[in-house]
């Protein structure tokens, strides 16, 4: 046996392959760090950690459960709105006004509306069927909608004109992250409850629709999130660069220190989450989930509650998306609902999971860090290419390429598309595929 052959076999083993790939990633990060500067490299690393959390969430849903979720952007926005509400300083103008009372009335109207719909649905018990029942339910929904709108519209207009928006509670951002996870869980519960019965491609379309609805709501509810006007600056759980500067740290140094502090917190969270996910995956719970994914008919004949378990996975994954989304908002210090795009948020996460290896947490971790670094770096690299090309065209007498800055930024989208199509074609199971153990 030649050494080359042995090497191939060595790299075929997931463990060695994983180690080799992580070393390669480390080298890439170091090279990027040297070329981009430590502060901006730390920025990329913190954001990559946040995206890794979200990708692990998708891995729970897609990798462990085979559940399609194109609503990642929606859950990230929910997390962002939650952390804004919890950690942004208190807005006294709102609490001193009649706003809370009006909002309370709107909440009451919402509950009344729910009651109307519930009552209409209960007519089934009285023997109402068919067209009459359908008509009644539709009318009840309409009535509920009108009741709610009649209360929320004046409240929203009042708050927007007097206090701007409701502000926050001024609590610790980490509490906000947890609240983001909780809120995402509640929404995921209802989304999953109504849509998980759909076939995969229908589920994909339904979830992308739901995520667009969530985006439209968060973007246009100015009284809650300030909408397109965006909320900033968000407080950090760790010292901000400005706080460090006040203590006498140099400006460049303060950014490195502050981001390092945030990175430690973020990585700590990631490590804890990763540990528990790995434990759960290896344990009986993970085995059951894989059994349901691979053959849900067989699993249900063994007495497993397929629908309930799938809902459980969907909610669990969404919690991580909410937490990750909240963390990213805290780090960037701004919550801007119009900054969320399906490409940058939903589909980039999918590329991370598929390229890394769906079902394998290590693979997903590698994929998320790798894709995020590639995503960020394709901009300067494209600029470099364009500048050189521009030089060539100028030398040829065709003139320079216009708007290089904004065009190079678009290169990211193209690169992402190329990466995913190439991955699907040549490595459909990802860089570090799921290891299927066959115990005797």
């Amino acid at each position, binding site marked *: 046996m030649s050494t080359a052959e042995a090497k191939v076999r060595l790299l075929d083993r997931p463990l060695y392959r994983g180690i080799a790939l992580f070393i390669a990633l480390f080298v890439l990060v170091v090279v990027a760090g040297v070329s981009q500067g430590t502060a901006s490299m730390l920025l990329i690393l913190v954001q990559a950690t946040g995206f890794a959390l979200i990708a692990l969430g998708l891995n729970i849903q897609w990798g462990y459960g085979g559940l399609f979720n194109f609503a990642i952007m929606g859950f990230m926005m929910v997390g962002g709105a939650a952390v804004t509400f919890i950690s942004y300083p208190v807005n006294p103008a709102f609490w001193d006004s009649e706003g809370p009372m009006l909002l309370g009335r709107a909440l009451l109207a919402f509950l009344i509306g729910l009651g109307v719909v519930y009552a209409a649905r209960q007519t089934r018990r009285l023997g109402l069927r068919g067209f009459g029942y359908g008509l009644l339910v539709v009318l009840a929904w309409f009535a509920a909608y009108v009741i709610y709108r009649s209360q929320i519209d004046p409240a929203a207009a009042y708050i927007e004109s007097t206090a701007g928006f409701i502000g926050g509670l001024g609590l610790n951002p980490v509490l906000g992250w947890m609240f983001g996870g909780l809120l995402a869980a509640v929404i995921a519960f209802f989304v999953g409850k109504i849509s998980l019965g759909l076939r995969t491609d229908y589920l994909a379309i*339904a979830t992308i629709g739901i995520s667009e609805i969530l985006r*439209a709501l968060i973007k246009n509810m100015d009284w809650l999130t300030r909408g397109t006007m965006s909320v900033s600056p968000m407080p950090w759980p760790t010292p901000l660069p400005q706080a460090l500067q006040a203590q006498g740290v140099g400006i460049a140094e303060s950014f490195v220190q502050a981001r390092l502090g945030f990175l430690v917190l973020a990585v700590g969270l990631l490590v804890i989450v990763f540990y528990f996910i790995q434990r759960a995956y290896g344990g009986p719970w993970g085995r059951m989930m894989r059994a349901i994914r691979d053959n849900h008919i067989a699993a249900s004949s063994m007495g497993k509650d397929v629908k309930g378990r799938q809902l459980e996975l969907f909610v669990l994954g969404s919690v991580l998306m909410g937490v990750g989304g909240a963390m990213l908002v805290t780090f960037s210090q701004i919550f801007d609902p119009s900054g969320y795009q399906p490409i940058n948020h939903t589909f980039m996460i999918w590329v991370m999971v598929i390229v890394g290896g769906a079902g394998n947490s290590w693979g997903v971790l590698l994929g998320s860090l790798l894709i995020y670094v590639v995503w960020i770096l394709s901009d300067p690299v494209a600029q470099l290419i364009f500048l050189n090309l521009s030089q060539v065209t100028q030398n040829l007498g065709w003139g320079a390429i216009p708007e290089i800055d904004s065009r190079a930024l678009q290169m990211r*989208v*193209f690169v992402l598309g190329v990466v995913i199509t190439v991955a699907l074609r040549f490595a459909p199971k990802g860089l570090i595929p799921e290891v299927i153990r066959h115990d005797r």
Partner: protein
Amino acid sequence: MDELIFFINRVLISGTVLGSIYALGAIGVTLIFGILRFAHFAHGDMMTMGGFIAFVLAGLLTAMGIVTPLPMGFVVLPVAMVIAAFLALGIDKGFYAPLRERGAKPVTMLIASIGVTLMIQGLLRLIFGSGTRSFYATESKDIFRIDMSAFGGTRPISITEPQVLMFVVTAALVIALHLFLTRSRLGKAMRAMADNADLAQVSGINTALVVRVTWIIAGSLACVAGVMLALDVALMPDLAFNIVLPIFAAAIVGGLGHAYGAIVGGFLIAFAETLAVFNWTAVLRPLNGLLPEGMALPSNLSLVPTEYKLTVAFVILVVTLLVRPTGIFKGAST
């Protein structure tokens, strides 16, 4: 009378325009789903791509100094359709066919189509920048005003030239598609394959040819829809998801795999969107005279605020999927 004219201008005309665009897009989505069994997410970008092809061609003609009585976008439409059809074939050959040969699951194809979306979108933005462009930078948009004073109206019904042409082209294309699907051998083969691909293959239908024809039809119709959208509003490279989701909604409401359903669904979604944001007070204002003293209609009686216009399509989409996933006509998706 003025209220009726207002209604025609704001709902009937703009709803029909939007409906034509959605219908043409939805036919492509539904045909691809029927024949190839996957949700083709890149369709919105194929539309934008078609719009840009026509834009470049129109620019070339204008640069050559050719002036036509019709808007440039319509003159170049046939050529743009051919180019778009070839591009669609190329995309299939390059990205979907290899996966199909490997026997990939529909979900994998779906993700691949997302990849294609990203690539097309990235390329378009790289080449054309991310700004908005218009076909009417050099020529003016003709507006026909139909005088309604004979019927007691003070304002005219106004309709633009591209809108009229759009109705004509859509009607012609839909009739042509209908004749193709019902009369020609190939069209019947397509319907047979949508019904049962295996049965179609053993009964001697050239399935590879059917797949090619599907892409040609879908690609060229997407091009027409894209050009129409560009002529009616403006040409934007990042339209993709704002347009592909209503189109999916239309295809699903009509029943995926069902070409006529897609047309009905397209108009249904378009009118639902337009009617939902329509301010009913404008039409019901005469009723103010009937109401008792001190009571008046509120100034805005639209069902949903304008900023939620697109959301209407998504809500219909989600509700349809949950209540009746096969669509109002039974789709071929069972």
